[in-house]
């Protein structure tokens, strides 16, 4: 923005704030220096200026009053009560947490908005430079390229469309969404809304949106149903709830520290009672009980510990771990990549993971 334009816009704001009557475009042109003589050029410039002020958040009121100089012609004004930030006074401890909050978005796409807000609050007399509480630095990252467009869509109540690559799907699919909110957990962002293709509420993970998020409707056409809690929709997994089950596992002494953190009844494998032909094979091993819910998730977790963890029971978990390990051997045997058929053949094992389609 050139200095001249800044000056003109500033004059325009002051002029429209100072007036109680609606001022017509012609009256504004006479009062505010810097507009061109040509009618056509003035009209164009004035249109752009109005747009610029609205983007800045200036409440430009359009109307007419009979008593005004413009008769019934459309005029403009900025009502001070709509323009002005109401009084706000913060105590030093309040200002300190506000300063901390404003820093949360550093490097993220809301950072500009946060500093803009801080600027206005400072202008209102708030001292945000007060020492922020020592010893803690919270940060939120919004690195997903889809974030800014989705936030704007939520803010403006506007439907969107995007390509989505769900886990376990072999291709992207075009999704049409009325977004209700964006939420983050463990550093990952999700958008919640009404899926127009499925006719149901859905959750999408932002990192799986490929390409651009485009507008797919007019602003103000998305209505968030009463009582909708976007957090609950995003974070409540409505998958089938299975009863927790106990598993008996053997853990190599001094290893498998992960499972040991929550193992119960940890005891050394009794000599000779190992149920194995060669009891010495289990010398230095412990036996323990672990609780689990989902075989499809738990088996890969245990497989990760290789020959430091052996599942004795239940049989379905034991088999799942064996299948998992066999798959590793098989996958590595094919240099240059698993074939499509090996992916397809794994349908059963992958079924648990596709539960992730809901977001995870």
């Amino acid at each position: 923005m050139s200095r001249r334009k800044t000056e003109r816009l500033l004059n325009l704001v002051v002029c429209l704030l100072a007036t109680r009557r609606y001022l017509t475009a012609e009256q504004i042109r006479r009062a505010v220096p810097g507009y061109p003589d040509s009618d056509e050029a003035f009209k164009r410039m004035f249109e752009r200026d109005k747009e610029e002020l609205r983007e800045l958040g200036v409440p430009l009121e359009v109307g007419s009053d009979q008593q005004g100089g413009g008769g019934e012609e459309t005029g403009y004004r900025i009502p001070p009560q709509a323009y002005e930030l109401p009084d706000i006074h913060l105590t030093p401890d309040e200002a300190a947490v506000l300063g901390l909050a404003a820093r949360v978005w550093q490097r993220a796409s809301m950072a500009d908005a946060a500093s803009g807000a801080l600027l206005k609050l400072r202008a209102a007399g708030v001292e945000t430079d007060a020492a922020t509480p020592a010893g803690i630095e919270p940060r939120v990252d919004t690195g997903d390229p889809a974030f800014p467009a989705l936030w704007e869509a939520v803010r403006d109540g506007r439907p969107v469309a995007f390509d989505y690559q769900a886990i376990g799907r072999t291709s992207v699919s075009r999704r049409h969404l009325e977004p209700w909110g964006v939420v983050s957990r463990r550093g990952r962002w999700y958008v919640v809304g009404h899926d127009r293709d499925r006719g149901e509420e859905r959750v999408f993970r932002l990192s799986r949106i490929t390409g651009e998020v485009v507008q797919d409707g007019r602003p103000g056409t998305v209505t968030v149903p009463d009582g909708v809690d976007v957090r609950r929709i995003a974070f409540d997994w409505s998958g089938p709830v299975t009863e927790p089950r106990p598993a008996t596992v053997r853990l190599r002494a001094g290893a498998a520290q992960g499972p040991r953190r929550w193992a119960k009844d940890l005891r050394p494998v009794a000599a000779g009672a190992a149920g194995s032909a060669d009891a010495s094979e289990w010398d230095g091993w412990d036996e323990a009980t672990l609780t689990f819910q989902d075989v499809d998730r738990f088996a890969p977790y245990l497989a990760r510990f290789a020959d430091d963890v052996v599942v004795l029971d239940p049989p379905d978990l034991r088999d799942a771990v064996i299948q998992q390990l066999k798959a590793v051997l098989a996958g590595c045997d094919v240099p240059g990549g698993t074939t499509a058929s090996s992916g397809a053949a794994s349908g059963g094992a992958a079924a648990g993971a596709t539960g992730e389609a809901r977001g995870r």
Partner: protein
Amino acid sequence: MTDMTTDETPPGAAAAPPAAAAGAKGRAAGKAASAKAAASNSTDRLARLLALVPYVVSRDSVELGQAAAAFGVSEKQLIDDLNLLWCVELRAPDPYCPIDLSYEGGEIIVTEAESIARPLRLKVDEASALLVALRMLAGIPDLQDRDALSRVIAKLETAAGAAAAVSSQVAVEVDVRGDTLGRLRQAIGAGRRVHIAYYVPARDENTERDVDPMRLLVVEGNTYLEGWCRRAEAVRLFRLDRISELSVLDVAAEVPDTAEPIDVDAGLFRPSPDDVRVTLDLTASGRWVADYYPCESVEELGEGRLRIVLRTPDTRWVRGLALRLGDEGHVVAPAGLAAAIRGDAARALARYGMA
């Protein structure tokens, strides 16, 4: 899900160009920065001008240097702003200059401010940015004076009015359990050394160490203790949910002057020239790996399959990852690593009586 980036990561071990640091994230940050630069040339200036007058008015008088610092501009720029404000004039019905100010002797005084004596209302974006952040802080137990947080949230909601409404549609949750955070804050406040038992998933190791705490970080939804690790004799990050035991020692913390705090805003993942490059092929079901680990490159292989390249100083965790992936993916390179993984699986199967 485990996360190798922060298992005791030596921060800043290698200075990497930020764009290369974390793939897509690095690029996005760069984009945001240039957008910010562009904006500061345009609407930012008008916003600043409209805030400048009330800033001075609400404080009676302000020194040039203080105002420049508050607005993040040079004194020269600030003087230019003040001159521009002073030039505001209206020509009709009668010509007059509504703003009168001076900055003689380096002291700004506004004698006439007219209609712009108050700052502009908060925009929806602005109110939301602060409210979402404040509510996130309020969701962290023991983090802050909870009282101050709820008071400032209430005041801000009132001041923002309708602009505050949408902020409830954005939420950031931070996972914090137990009393570790509160006790560490106290230790930091009291300047005390702590002893921790710390689990390192990447190596499946329990470690014990003394740490001189520096500060707490909340990054990407996780909380970390940053401190001088007396075992490693270096600054280290410890994820709070992996601290299994914590005792605050009756010893004063001694953080060396040379200890550099981690630049959180540059991201936690710092590749080093000594890193091993690991290539993994993933099936459509294994794509989640690309979401959870910082990748140097991600290549679509068609039908939902991916080829990713990770960089890591320690490949032990990759062996665990490969076992966990099963048929969802496998290590392509280095060949030695792929062979080691095969060996892991074969030895484990032998334990089940299968060769």
